[in-house]
C-alpha cells in the first residue's frame, strides 16, 4: 500500500516536471514577451530546480531498490550513473553558483535521457529487444506503470529532460538574448 502511494506520488512529480519543462520551452519560443519575462524570472532557479529534481530522483530510485526491493536492470544502472552524478554536481553548483559545470551536466543529462528514452520504449514495445525475459531483472518489464505509462524509466526521462531544459533554456545568456531582443523590438 505504501509502495503504491510512493509510486503514484513520484509519478505525479515526474509529470509535473515534464509539463513544466515543456511549458518553459513553449514560453521561450512562442510565448512572446510575457513568456520571455517568465524565463528571465526563472534564472535564479537555474541550478536549484535541476539539483532538486535529480536529488529526489536519486532518493526515489534508492527507495524503490533498497526498501521496496525492485532490482535495477542493466539500463537502470546506466541511468543511475548519470542521475547520481548529476545530483551531486548540481547540488554543489547550486550552492557555489558555478556555471562552469553546465557543459558537463548537459552531456550527462543527454546520455541519461537517451538511455531512459530507449528503456521506456523497450518497456512499451519489448519486441525491440530479444524475445526473452531475463531471469534476473529484465529491462523490458516495468515494475509498475502509473496511469499506464509512467514507469521508473519514464520518470528518469522526465528528470533528465528537466535538467536539460533548465540548463539550456533557462540561462543567463538566454535571458540576456531575450532582453536584447526586447530592446531591439522596442527600437
Amino acid at each position: 500500500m505504501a509502495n503504491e502511494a510512493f509510486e503514484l506520488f513520484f509519478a505525479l512529480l515526474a509529470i509535473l516536471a515534464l509539463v513544466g519543462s515543456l511549458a518553459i520551452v513553449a514560453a521561450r519560443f512562442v510565448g512572446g514577451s510575457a513568456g520571455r519575462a517568465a524565463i528571465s524570472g526563472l534564472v535564479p532557479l537555474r541550478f536549484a530546480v535541476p539539483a532538486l529534481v535529480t536529488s529526489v530522483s536519486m532518493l526515489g530510485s534508492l527507495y524503490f531498490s533498497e526498501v521496496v526491493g525492485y532490482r535495477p536492470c542493466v539500463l537502470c544502472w546506466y541511468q543511475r550513473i548519470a542521475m547520481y552524478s548529476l545530483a551531486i554536481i548540481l547540488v554543489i553548483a547550486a550552492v557555489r553558483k558555478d556555471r562552469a559545470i553546465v557543459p558537463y551536466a548537459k552531456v550527462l543529462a543527454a546520455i541519461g535521457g537517451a538511455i531512459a528514452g530507449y528503456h521506456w520504449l523497450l518497456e512499451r514495445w519489448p519486441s525491440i529487444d530479444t524475445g526473452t525475459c531475463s531471469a534476473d531483472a529484465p529491462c523490458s518489464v516495468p515494475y509498475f506503470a502509473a496511469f499506464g505509462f509512467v514507469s521508473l524509466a519514464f520518470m528518469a526521462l522526465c528528470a533528465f529532460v528537466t535538467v536539460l531544459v533548465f540548463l539550456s533554456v533557462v540561462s543567463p545568456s538566454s535571458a540576456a538574448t531575450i532582453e536584447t531582443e526586447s530592446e531591439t523590438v522596442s527600437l
Partner: protein
Amino acid sequence: MNKVTTLVVGVVAVLAAVFGVVAFTTSSDQDASLEGASEFQNVVVVGEPLPEFGDGADTAIGMTAPVLEGFGFLGNEVTTTPGTPMLLVFLAHWCPFCQKEAPVLVKWNSSGLVPENLDVIAVTTGTDESQPNFPPSVWLANEKWPELWPVLVDNKDQTAANTFGLAGYPFMTLIGSDGKVLWRNSGEISAEALTEAVNAALGL
C-alpha cells in the same frame, strides 16, 4: 527572489503537497486469485540439476532430466515422471513474451500439430505479487490453458526453474520417453518452429 521565482516555488510546493495527499489516500484493489488457488507450491526434485541454458551448444542434451514432484494451483499432485515424451513449458506471468507465448501454445494444442503422446506440462515460476498480470492462476485461466495440460506451480525459490537451468522466460525443455533431455529453448517461439523442433528432436 523575484516574483516569478516565488510564484513558481509556491505553486510547485503546493502541487507536491497535493500529490502527496492524493497518493497516500488513494487505495487500490488487490488482484483476486482463483478460489482456493495457491500461487506458490512445494517442489521436490529427484535427480541432478541441468546446466544453465546459454549460448552455443546445449550441454544438457542427452543428460537425464531431473524429476519434479509438485502440485498444481489447487493442490493436485503434478509429477514429471518419465515414460512418455514430455514438454515442460516454464512461464512467468509478468513476462510479456510469456504472455504472447501462452495463446500460441493454446492454439498449437487445437491445431493438430502437437505430436501424439506428447505430454505438455506448464510450470509457473518467477511468480511475483508486485509484478503485472498477477496471479498466474487467473492469467492461465483467462488464456483457456488446455485442461489436459497440467500446471505445476513452482515455489518462491524457483526450485523447478533453477533445476532445469532456466536463464530466461519463456523456457521449454523436451524430455524423451527414456527421461533424457532432447531439446531446450529460451524465448518466444512460433507454433511452426516449435512443431519442427519437437518433431526433429523426437525423430518424427
